[in-house]
């Protein structure tokens, strides 16, 4: 589905992405790695929000160099780091902004059924929500665009463990339904709960790709790639 080849991003002197290659789909893929390795830049570059050099394609359709709205129309949706919900919009307005009509796979009703908390909060503003609610809203906003593949940048960041478990369940459901998923995570437990395969990002490159279970089982490998063992979280 999503294929990235030789993707480079430079900010002035800084060479953030140094030739990223990856392929996602139909199975979900997780990208793990320490802070500052370029994971968020990778998400934003794929989405067209940051200019990069290299190839990006979704089901054979080239996306590199397109503005974000056309990348979104081609079938990619982003759940960004920090959620980036709109403070001026209520929950319901967020969903109306992106909803594609009653015949779409994802409708506003389905989003409320999937995230009942959002239905309770439909008249609340984007800033009056808890971190978990904001995350659900950011995910619902992405799903209502009926994407072929969703990119999620650290969805578990700052969430209580019980909410992380709920989130992992929702994401497994998405993957089972055939929606592609690129999950960027620092939380290895979350990544392994959703994805069978993890790619490790080190200084702007994909350093290794392996079964998630292998990385979970190998603390020496975790220390090398992530700097900490999963058990220390």
């Amino acid at each position, binding site marked *: 589905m999503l294929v990235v080849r030789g993707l480079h991003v430079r900010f002035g002197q800084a060479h953030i992405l140094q030739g990223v290659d990856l392929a996602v789909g139909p199975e979900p893929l997780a990208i793990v790695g320490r802070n500052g390795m370029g994971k968020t830049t990778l998400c934003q570059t794929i*989405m*067209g*929000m940051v200019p990069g050099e290299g190839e990006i394609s979704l089901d054979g359709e080239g996306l590199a160099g397109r*503005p*974000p*709205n056309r*990348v*979104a*129309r081609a079938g990619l*949706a*982003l759940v*960004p780091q920090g959620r*980036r919900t*709109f*403070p*001026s*919009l209520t929950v319901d*307005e967020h969903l*109306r*902004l*992106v909803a594609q009509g009653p015949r779409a796979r994802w409708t506003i009703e389905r989003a409320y059924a999937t995230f009942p908390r959002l239905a309770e909060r439909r008249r609340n503003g*984007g800033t009056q929500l808890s971190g978990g609610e904001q995350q659900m809203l950011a995910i619902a*906003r992405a799903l209502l*665009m009926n994407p072929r593949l969703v990119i999620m940048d650290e969805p578990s960041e700052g969430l209580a463990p019980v909410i992380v478990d709920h989130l992992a369940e929702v994401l497994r459901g998405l993957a089972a339904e055939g929606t592609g998923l690129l999950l960027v995570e620092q939380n290895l437990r979350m990544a392994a709960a959703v994805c069978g395969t993890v790619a490790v990002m080190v200084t702007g490159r994909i350093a290794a790709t392996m079964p998630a279970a292998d990385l979970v089982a190998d603390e020496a490998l975790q220390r090398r790639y992530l700097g900490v063992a999963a058990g220390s979280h």
Partner: protein
Amino acid sequence: MALAATVLLNGLTLAALYFVVASGFSLIFGLMRTVNMAHGALYLVGAYVAYAVFEPLYDRDAWYAWYLAVPVGMAAAGLAGIALQGVLLGWMQGQELRQALVTIGVSIVVADQLLAQFGGTPRQFFAPDALFGTTPLPLVGRYPTFRLVQIAVALGVGIGLWWLLARTKLGLMVRAGVDDRAMLAACGVNVPLVSLAVFGLGAALAGLGGVIGATAQPLAQGVDGRFLLTSLVVVIVGGMGSVPGTAVGAVLVGLAEQVGQALFPTYAVILTFALMVAVLAVRPQGLLGRSA
């Protein structure tokens, strides 16, 4: 008592005109962060183009001359604004200083072109009979009808903008874009197109202000600078990018000018700027503005 009421009404009618002009300025700033220094020039474009349509019709005693001038002025300014955003400013989105300098340049060129085209003689629209003359009011006695029309127009613009922003899909996009343009684009929205629409709307409001303003007081060279400056003061006092803030700012500035004129005519201008300084000292983001 009657004098106080008259001064108050004068302040409010002036505020109404300022609101119409400055709301467009604020709308453009809110979404695009563009400090549109050509807003006064758009006011002039609207007023002069409308006048060119108005004059021959008025000479022939066509009753609809003024009513036609209003949409013509809005359309002329709106199209000029769309051209400004589409041809020049869209390419430098996010570069505020460059945009400010370009719009200053455009405003100088436009003002000179209008001078070449229409000459330096002051022009004034004549309000249609239905809006002309005076209306009896309690306390003040008789009051010019057209000034009351000004207040009605400002209320209409305010309610219309509220409806647009709160109730329409375009309004959703504009509010989301004010919060986070990049994320709005990632939601599949063509933000440059929304920007064009908003710039056109903001410019059309400047054009509406141009026709209304040039009916109340003569249209002449230099008026653009005055309305640009007033718009800046209004949105600084009220809060950049906030429509209710613009309304509050316009009322305060309009009242300050008229009260100053009544109490100490020589130094009246100082009151407006004292108001701005006071607001900047206490609430730099403006009375209803959000801190950046």
